């Protein structure tokens, strides 16, 4: 689960991770008020969006407006907020349709001496949380990682003890951070790593992380992704979810316990198991088709879930055919067959439906489909299924 910058910064504040004073605003008036409350002679106004690349992004409705802007008066703040709120911001990460901005964040300015990059992730290879810091702040970190990986410094830490001071000293030495700035770095990094572990983050990224002219380390941006599997112990964090940022079909699927990802093709897929679902997409492509989605109905799928899965697939107007690929383990082929029959009564299949069943109760399942009188194209194996579904729309 991702959250907005302003929400991440509220969490930073509660863990004492240093940030600048700031306020969220949902109207132009609130933005002007926020500017006055900050009380300085300049502020930064930032569109709140889960996607990155806001600074270089522009709005569809107001092409001159960027996603991040320096403002020097309450009036400027109000105008910028009016340009942003309710409009769609296009960044390198949103796609050409852009993403609707519903709130902005106003933050104090500060005098920057240095810009750095910082991220914390869980390193799968080492099976430990990993702090990464780079002297190349403010730029695209993927580029740094690809071109000059030696510029990214790495320190693993044990979640039980957190990041140790000696680790920060090592980083500061290599980054040439000294004196009060090094002290500030120790406090900042250790608090952030504590937050990472305590809140079950899967990623925390700060770009840029700055050192001010008065030697303070401060998070100018804040991105956090939480481990979905750990949300059961953070009921308060669930409240931070912004459903406007999510693909409606994916949200609907998640509510039914289905794992769904929308893609650009025209062949809908309904599969049990994540690996098999990916492989089914792959084989469609291999035989010249294009999958419209990834959909894993899970191991113990019941009739209601499968029916809902069909509804979600058919709600996509691009879908011209459907491929059902089930290898029954826990999920029984008879359950899937019944669901196909039920779904056809309810939603009706106006597009070709290719079904490949294998595994638990396969013969009974196939028999149910044969006797249902439905116009189903039955397939014997994966290749047969992929070829038939591609041919059905050729």
């Amino acid at each position, binding site marked *: 689960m991702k959250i907005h910058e302003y929400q991440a910064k509220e969490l930073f504040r509660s863990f004492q991770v240093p940030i600048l004073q700031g306020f969220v605003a949902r109207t132009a008036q609130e933005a002007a008020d926020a500017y006055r409350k900050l009380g300085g002679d300049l502020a930064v106004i930032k569109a709140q969006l889960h996607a990155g690349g806001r600074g270089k992004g522009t709005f569809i409705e107001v092409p001159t407006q960027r996603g991040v802007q320096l403002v020097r008066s309450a009036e400027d703040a109000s105008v910028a907020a009016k340009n942003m709120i309710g409009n769609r911001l296009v960044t390198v990460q949103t796609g050409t349709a852009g993403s609707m901005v519903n709130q902005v964040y106003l933050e104090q300015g500060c005098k920057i001496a240095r810009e750095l990059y910082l991220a914390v992730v869980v390193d799968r*290879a080492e099976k430990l949380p990993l702090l990464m810091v780079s002297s190349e702040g403010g730029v695209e970190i993927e580029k740094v*990682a690809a071109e000059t990986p030696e510029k990214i410094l790495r320190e693993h830490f044990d979640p039980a003890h957190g990041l140790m001071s000696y680790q920060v000293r090592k980083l500061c030495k290599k980054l040439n951070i000294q004196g009060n700035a090094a002290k500030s770095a120790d406090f900042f990094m250790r608090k952030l790593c504590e937050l990472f572990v305590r809140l079950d983050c899967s990623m925390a990224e700060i770009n840029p992380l700055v050192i001010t002219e008065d030697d303070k380390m401060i998070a100018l941006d804040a991105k956090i992704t939480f481990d979905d599997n750990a949300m059961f112990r953070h009921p308060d964090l669930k409240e931070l979810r912004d459903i406007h940022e999510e693909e409606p079909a994916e949200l609907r699927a998640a509510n039914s316990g289905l*794992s769904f990802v929308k893609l650009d093709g025209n062949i809908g897929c309904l599969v049990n198991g994540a690996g098999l679902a990916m492989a089914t997409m792959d084989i469609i492509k291999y035989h010249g088709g294009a999958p419209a989605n990834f959909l894993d109905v899970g191991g113990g799928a019941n009739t209601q879930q499968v029916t809902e899965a069909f509804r979600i697939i058919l709600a996509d107007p691009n879908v011209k055919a459907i491929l059902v690929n089930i290898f029954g383990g826990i999920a029984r082929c008879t359950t899937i067959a019944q669901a196909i029959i039920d779904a056809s009564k309810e939603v009706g299949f106006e597009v070709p439906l290719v079904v490949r069943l294998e595994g638990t109760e396969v013969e009974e399942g196939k028999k149910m489909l044969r006797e249902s009188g439905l116009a189903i194209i039955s397939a014997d194996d994966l290749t047969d299924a992929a070829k038939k579904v591609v041919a059905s729309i050729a």
Partner: protein
Amino acid sequence: MSIFVNSDTRVICQGITGKAGAFHTKGCKEYGTKMVGGVTPGKSGETVEGLPVFDTVEEAVKQTGANATMIFVPPPFTADAILEAVDAGIEVICAITEGVPVIDMVHVYDVVKRSKSVLIGPNCPGVITPGQCKIGIMPGYIHQPGKVGIMSRSGTLTYEAVWQTSNLKLGQSTCVGLGGDPIVGTSFIDVFERFQQDDQTEVILMIGEIGGDAEEKAAEYVRNHVTKPVAAFIAGRTAPPGKRMGHAGAIITGGKGTAAEKVSALEAAGIVVAPSPAEMGQAVAEALRRRG
């Protein structure tokens, strides 16, 4: 021979009184697995499928001589259940549960690493030595005793591979479901090491997926340490970056973990890579042929 489990393996189920635990205990028992008991705190004295239920794993081991466990407890309690099994000296721990927080696994992995136990999973279908012992949720009947060692990060895709190798009359020595999470107890390399030493295993099939660099590391290991023929398949060639494909671990981040990178690393190590999931069995046969 086989790896991890055989006809002498004595298995308990942690979470045996739950719906999934009871259902799959029955399935394993029917397959012929030596199921000897189960554990659910507070339910000692009850029986499930005719098997005794104990409060603690320690007690279950003492009473039944169990040396393997199959874990079905809910995600908030899975770490605790795994650590209890380690503490009781269980040799093979299969955690089937899906949805364990990754930070929990950091601690669990650290403890398991320093113990004599092997952890398979979490979020995995389990492990099976056909005709001898099935621990987990896979449909038993698709398997056939034979020569292919199979390991995978995905459940149903493993069934697909098993089915294909059974249809080709190659059969399987042991099939290991590693699990789809970012941190799991057993890696491809751990299993390669065992298959390499196992007499029954003549050829090895690795089924990977996008995300992380486990497949690349395994390719490096194969190049240096594995003399047996190896075939592979990587799922997710068509997956877009930044989207989690069902498994927490199956996500391409920062341009890393793509299928293309993995396939080229595998091919460079002399591994036969199946171009489509329908050709995993043929890739295994091809790997065998190339060695004559």
